[in-house]
């Protein structure tokens, strides 16, 4: 486990700003699972919040128009995690109504009387996916094949720089709690943990004071303050910390009676159920020393980075050398600014040359720092050795598939070996060997 300088910076204290795009690029794939079925075609007029594609299978998710306007094109576009993927390009009408007008507004009493399946279908219809990073369709997570007893709400936000979850927890504490209420009801859990790191004590305070009002049907909810370290927010590690249960290798949290939901996902669940509001926007942290001013923006899904710079919503004070979608530990470095924000984008970082460590890779001295920090208890240095030698079958014996690619090993390596790079190469090689 690692302690990293958090660099959460001034954006931690700034209110989230709202941004409306002139163009959106909405990839069909923004979640784990199969591609949804497209319901619109080029030149169709779409309205803000209208469904564009519906789930095609059990594990799939709907996507919605995040701007009113015309579908200009459906084509392969840059994708932050898949590199290239099919996307809809929608140009927003000049005077499209800025605000999402909810078709329904449900009262608390109404929501309390709804059945679980009704709640789940609302969540599914809104295209809610896990907003912490993996983008697993939320309705699937809320219908576990086994009974679960514990809900863990993940407010750790352990990656440096990122503060979007923190701002959401500060600005929308009540809404998040209402979302948690809904999830807890669907899952019929008897314990709810809200896990927050000790560098976000203000959020802890807000949750505690709201919970004390007893307004919420969350008798078993407990805010747990965790000492901040990386990767605290990783699912398996968080479950182990809170419940001492170990998710079996290759298994999922429900195997040990747990479901983990990110705070932002809880917020989207609240919006889906109370307002029928689809997942068309999210809070994204924009930070890094190339920016004049770091910000948290409530931003429409599909907004292209370039537009934010052209419209000077973001300004560079220095030239960025690296643009990262996600946090610095697990994020993806991109080759241009022509990439859209997708549902799972927590942050975009603009790093200058001074932020980067470009020291060259040297020989492994077997110091074992990677072993000491590995949250999965693996031997990362062995992966490098075996990949270099091409001993693919041995990689399995060292459980390479268990690696969550958190980057702790690469961070702490004094020889500057890009361990995650080797691990990814090893995993890919094994996958292709399995196929043939």
């Amino acid at each position, binding site marked *: 486990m690692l302690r990293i300088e958090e660099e959460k910076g001034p954006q931690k204290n700034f209110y989230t700003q709202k941004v409306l795009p002139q163009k959106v690029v909405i990839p069909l794939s923004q979640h784990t699972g199969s591609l949804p079925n497209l319901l619109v075609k080029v030149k169709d007029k779409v309205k803000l919040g209208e469904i564009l594609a519906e789930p095609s299978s059990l594990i799939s998710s709907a996507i919605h128009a995040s701007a009113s306007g015309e579908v200009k094109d459906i084509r392969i576009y840059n994708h932050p995690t898949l590199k290239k993927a099919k996307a809809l390009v929608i140009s927003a009408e000049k005077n499209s109504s800025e605000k999402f007008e909810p078709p329904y507004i449900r009262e608390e009493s109404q929501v309390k009387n709804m059945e679980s399946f009704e709640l789940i279908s609302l969540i599914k219809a809104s295209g809610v996916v896990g907003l912490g990073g993996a983008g697993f369709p939320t309705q699937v997570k809320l219908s576990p094949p086994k009974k679960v007893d514990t809900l863990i709400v993940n407010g750790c936000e352990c990656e440096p720089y990122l503060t979007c979850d923190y701002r959401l927890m500060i600005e929308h504490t009540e809404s998040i709690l209402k979302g948690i209420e809904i999830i807890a009801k669907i899952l019929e859990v008897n314990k709810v943990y809200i896990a927050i790191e000790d560098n976000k004590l203000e959020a802890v305070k807000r949750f505690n004071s709201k919970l004390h009002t007893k307004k919420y049907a969350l008798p078993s909810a407990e805010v747990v303050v965790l000492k901040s370290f990386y990767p605290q927010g990783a699912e398996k590690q968080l479950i182990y910390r809170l419940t001492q249960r170990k998710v079996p290798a290759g298994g999922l949290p429900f195997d040990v009676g747990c479901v983990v939901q990110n705070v932002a996902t809880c917020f989207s669940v609240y919006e889906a159920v109370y307002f029928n509001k689809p997942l068309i926007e999210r809070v994204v942290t924009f930070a890094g020393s190339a920016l004049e001013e770091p910000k948290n923006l409530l931003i429409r899904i599909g907004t292209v980075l370039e537009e934010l710079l052209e419209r000077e919503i973001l300004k560079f004070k220095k030239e960025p050398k690296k643009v990262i979608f996600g946090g610095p530990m697990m994020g993806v*470095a991109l080759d241009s600014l022509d990439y859209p924000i997708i549902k799972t984008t927590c942050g975009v970082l603009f790093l200058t040359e001074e932020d980067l460590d470009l020291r060259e890779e040297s020989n492994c001295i077997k110091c074992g720092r990677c072993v000491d920090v590995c949250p999965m208890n693996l031997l990362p240095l062995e992966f490098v050795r075996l990949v270099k030698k091409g001993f693919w079958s041995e990689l399995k014996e060292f459980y390479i598939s268990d690696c969550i690619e958190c980057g702790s090993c690469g961070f702490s390596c004094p020889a500057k070996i890009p361990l995650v790079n080797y691990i990814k190469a090893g995993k890919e090689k094994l996958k292709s060997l399995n196929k043939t």
Partner: protein
Amino acid sequence: MKLIVEVSPHKKADYDICWLMKQVLIGLTPVVLASIIFFRMRAVLLIISCLLGAVISEEVWMRLRKKPSSLRDYSAVITGILLALVLPPKLPLWVGFLGGVVSIILGKQVFGGLGQNIFNPALVGRAFLMAAFPVMLTSWVEPFSLDAVTKATPLALWKFSKEFTPLKDLFLGNVAGSLGETSSLAIILGGGYLIIRKIADWRAPLGMFLGMSILSGIFYLVNPLQGSILFHLFSGGALLGMFFMVTDPVTTPSSKLGRFLFGLFCGFLVIILRKFSGLPEGVMYSILIMNGFTPLINRLTKPKPLGR
């Protein structure tokens, strides 16, 4: 705008190998100073000879193989100094130089350079000298004696004439012995720095401490003439090995449990060799033997991944 695309993580720790090695040099400083205090110019010259042997052979080797110079990683410097610290002060300088060459070439480079070697390079150098020049390697002098009065080491006095050196002298270093092995205080200061700064892992030293303590404790209870726990810890190369040899990352196991076990077995072996072998001291052989077991220990102590 040209953007760099590489795999995560995009943030890395500040330190690198060069920095870590410099920290080890800082850790060695008190030991080097103590050796100079006790053995004066002899210490200075022997350290320089070993250093030159190590550094020159490293540079020549890399040039012959047409590879970039590796002096900047300081590992040859550390090997040279460590070698000098385990040699007797009266040793002819050319022998020290030769030891430095052997340490680097046979101890490290033939295996493929930094990170690839199986045995601790400085100890390989010493083992070679021990085999080639046994008499020179076992003639000791009294500290502070400019005319080099011959004197046996505390372990030799214990082993061959059942004579015990006062613990205070062992602790401060006012005894005969290798350059850097005499002063327990200096070694604990420098080694403690490395452990507190987390440059060296604490598990192997703890293991060695326990291994030596347990075994020497048992022997002491049976017969106090076998020497007390503190006598064994403070005499010979035990502490230097504990802080600067079993903590060498390259030649010791990489799993946490493995590091501890490595130290533990080194500790056992030291006491066994001191008691049962023909030589009074056994630290060098203990560590070299255990170096050979490192791959096996690594295999047997593979940690269990979370959820397996």
